[in-house]
């Protein structure tokens, strides 16, 4: 009644402009997209995939010679007990290292999936890095390093002083093992686990740092990208964004490429932190991969989000596809490997894209039958090495690791 009286009395009207601005981001539109011209002389990646984003530069790249060509078929599936969750494996020199995200570490022969050794421990977090002859895992007890050949424990780096614990996905350049903590970033000696430093920002580092040329680069929940001296932990620079930085930073040719939860991909000078360029995607940017003079970035939250290809020098976009499922990204000059939405059904499956155009060139179908059980599905992240794709999987409700290789006509 009050409102009717208001209208009759001609009361003051205050309106607000509720028209939203597009969340699809700025930058070049579809009309200016054109295929990427990948520079084959700027191929990134190395043999093996020892840590979350490949190696200590976090390029997420695989050399074309080490990558398979689709179509792929499931080569083997190695089951582990445990229900906690799937882990993206590490691969180096013919051995796959992974865990069941609970209490057992596994080393598997890369060509057959046969167990080399396994080791039951207290809680282990999802993520390991292989450095030298060690496989390093974070856990409630700190960081534990195991001999790659037989699983003998070599050292433990205990949690930092105080309440902060190490988080996931350590990265190493062979000398320093850098890892996020609940309150910042820490580093231990890769040879013996001795603590080097703990740089506290007051908020969590959620994912893998990069370690390049004596500098640790880490994204933090305080919205900054931090560059810290790998030996002393002293701050070299920090770059502010508008959201949590939960994307592993990638460092290539003196530039740091990283995404933020503010929806932007940043290119920063690795020496000074100065911005070279930025590119708005819209949703939180989760991952970047760099090869062939291009940056591939995936964004999104709970739903499928955009995957884009940008020119590394300028940030200019080549293409955009709304296909990113949030489960990792591996970039080769000939194919991008990631999880793609299934046609029609819910869920996702492993697929390959043309890096020049973003077109889907292959998608794994019928995976449930091969993996067995109603709930057979592939899981989180991809490691691409030695002509194969390795990924976590769930088989008959159990945690597993799977390897996919080029399909042969005689292979079902």
């Amino acid at each position: 009644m009050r409102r009717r009286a208001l209208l009759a009395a001609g009361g003051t009207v205050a309106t607000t402009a509720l028209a939203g601005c597009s969340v699809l981001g700025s930058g070049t539109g579809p009309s200016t997209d054109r295929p990427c011209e990948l520079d084959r002389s700027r191929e990134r990646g190395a043999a093996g995939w020892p840590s979350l984003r490949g190696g200590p530069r976090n390029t997420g790249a695989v050399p074309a010679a080490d990558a398979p060509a689709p179509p792929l078929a499931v080569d083997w599936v190695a089951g582990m007990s445990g229900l906690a969750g799937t882990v993206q494996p590490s691969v180096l020199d013919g051995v796959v290292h992974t865990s069941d995200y609970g209490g057992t570490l596994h080393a598997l022969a890369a060509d057959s999936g046969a167990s080399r050794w396994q080791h039951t421990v207290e809680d282990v977090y999802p993520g390991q890095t292989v450095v030298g002859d060690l496989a390093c895992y974070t856990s409630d007890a700190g960081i534990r390093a195991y001999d790659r050949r037989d699983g003998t424990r070599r050292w433990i780096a205990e949690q930092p002083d105080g309440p902060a614990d190490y988080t996931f996905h350590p990265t190493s350049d062979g000398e320093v093992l850098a890892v996020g903590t609940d309150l910042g970033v820490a580093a231990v000696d890769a040879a013996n686990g001795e603590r080097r430093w703990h740089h506290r920002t007051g908020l969590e580092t959620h994912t893998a740092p990069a370690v390049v040329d004596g500098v640790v680069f880490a994204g933090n929940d305080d919205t900054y990208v931090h560059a810290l001296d790998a030996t002393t932990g002293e701050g070299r620079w920090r770059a502010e964004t508008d959201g949590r930085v939960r994307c592993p930073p990638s460092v290539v040719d003196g530039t740091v490429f990283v995404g933020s939860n503010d929806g932007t991909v940043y290119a920063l000078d690795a020496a000074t932190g100065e911005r070279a360029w930025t590119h708005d995607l819209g949703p939180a940017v989760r991952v970047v991969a760099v090869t062939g003079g291009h940056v591939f970035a995936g964004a999104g939250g709970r739903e499928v989000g955009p995957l884009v290809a940008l020119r590394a020098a300028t940030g200019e976009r080549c293409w955009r596809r709304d296909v990113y499922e949030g489960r990792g990204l591996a970039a080769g000059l000939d194919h991008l490997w990631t999880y793609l939405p299934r046609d029609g059904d819910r869920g996702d499956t492993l697929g390959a894209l043309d890096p020049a155009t973003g077109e889907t060139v292959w998608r794994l179908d019928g995976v449930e039958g091969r993996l067995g059980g109603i709930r057979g599905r592939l899981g989180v992240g991809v490691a691409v090495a030695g002509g194969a794709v390795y990924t976590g999987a769930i088989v008959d409700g159990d945690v597993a690791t799977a390897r996919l290789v080029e399909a042969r006509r005689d292979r079902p």
Partner: protein
Amino acid sequence: MDRRASPAATGRRALLAALGTAVLAGCSSCPPPDSDEGSVRAGWPAPHGHPTNAGDVAGRPEPPDDPRVTAWNLHEFVDPSRDDTLFARSPVVGEEHVLVATGRRTGGSRKPAGRLFAFPPASDAPDPAWTARIGSGASAAPAVFGDLVVVPTFDGRLVARETATGDRRWERSLGAAPGTPTVVGDRLYVGDRGGTLRALSPDGDRCWRVDRGPLVEGIGLGRSPSASSKPAVAGDLVHAVYTREDTDPDRGRLVAHDRADGSVRWEYAFEPGNRPVRAPAVADGTVYLPGGEALHAVDAATGERRWRYAVSAGDGVSTPAVRDGSVYVCAKNVHALDAADGTERWRFVDEAVGDTFTRLQPLYAAPLAAGGRIYAGLGALDAATGEPRWGEFGNDPESAFFGRSLGGNLASEGPALVDGVLYATLRYGLLVRFGGGG
């Protein structure tokens, strides 16, 4: 992304927008707005110290660097069989007493209730001078209005009691739980959870009211926003914050109302995050808005954003304290920012890591800023460097004051500073005094 108020659209949208905001003419017994809003007042009439909410306490006497500490456990003064769990609000100080209101919106079988406690500030007397029941519990900290203390309650009332005796003077039913009022001269400004902002006289009579009403929400019916943050008053404007609980990313509005009649001067849209939005603060022509995961600096005259500092700590941002070109804000850690452009100057790291089984507590209560000291947590930091000077900052797992989980932290609207004595409350029902007594 910021928005500006735009001319009315046509058609249905204009109609619904017209339903959304109403300004009703005031009554004639209402005193004109007081032109003097910034002066330092006796006592500590409301959280943040000023009608501007800027928490600037420079010039006031401060506790020494090794202050005497006294504490009162409010649980000792209630009958546990009759009173609900205490949830203490920030303290305020009138001429005679330090006043603590309690109350909590709870589920369960017990009817929620609260109390108002009055302690003599200067003595170590173990008992309150008086206490009074608050039927449904205090929905926010109260405000001192002349010789009265005005308490907002969960059942939608403002209850005014005499600060000296606790006797009830008047009561107004607003229809929705109010927030902490702001007192300026002979007027009281208060918002409520139904989206109404009011200006009241010393007798509780209405000078004006503005209903945001149900805001447009796509095609369906809208819901009323909440306006339960303490308003900030500076110059001829009252700044109030409105938030809705839907999923629209621009579901928060900072609105500048004319003090004389409540008419809207400008609006600023923002994303409030998932936590209750705290009071804005005004200093030097800028409104500082703790907007969920960022602190926004908005031009007080035009509503244009000047800068924004993303915090992303997950549990929200405090009302900042602003003085001398620096902005101090508690967002789990304590940040000092340059008021001109939001550049971070220093950061005090709080070691709480989300484990609710220890006494480590993130810092979210509003700080105060003096000349050389920032009062944050239960202590003082150096204003220039952020180095701790005395007290506790949520970093001690064996703390004598911070408790476990949410109730173990400070009341969010911060401490009171009067006559060189700092008063702070812990939510679980502890009043702590630094300095004074003896």
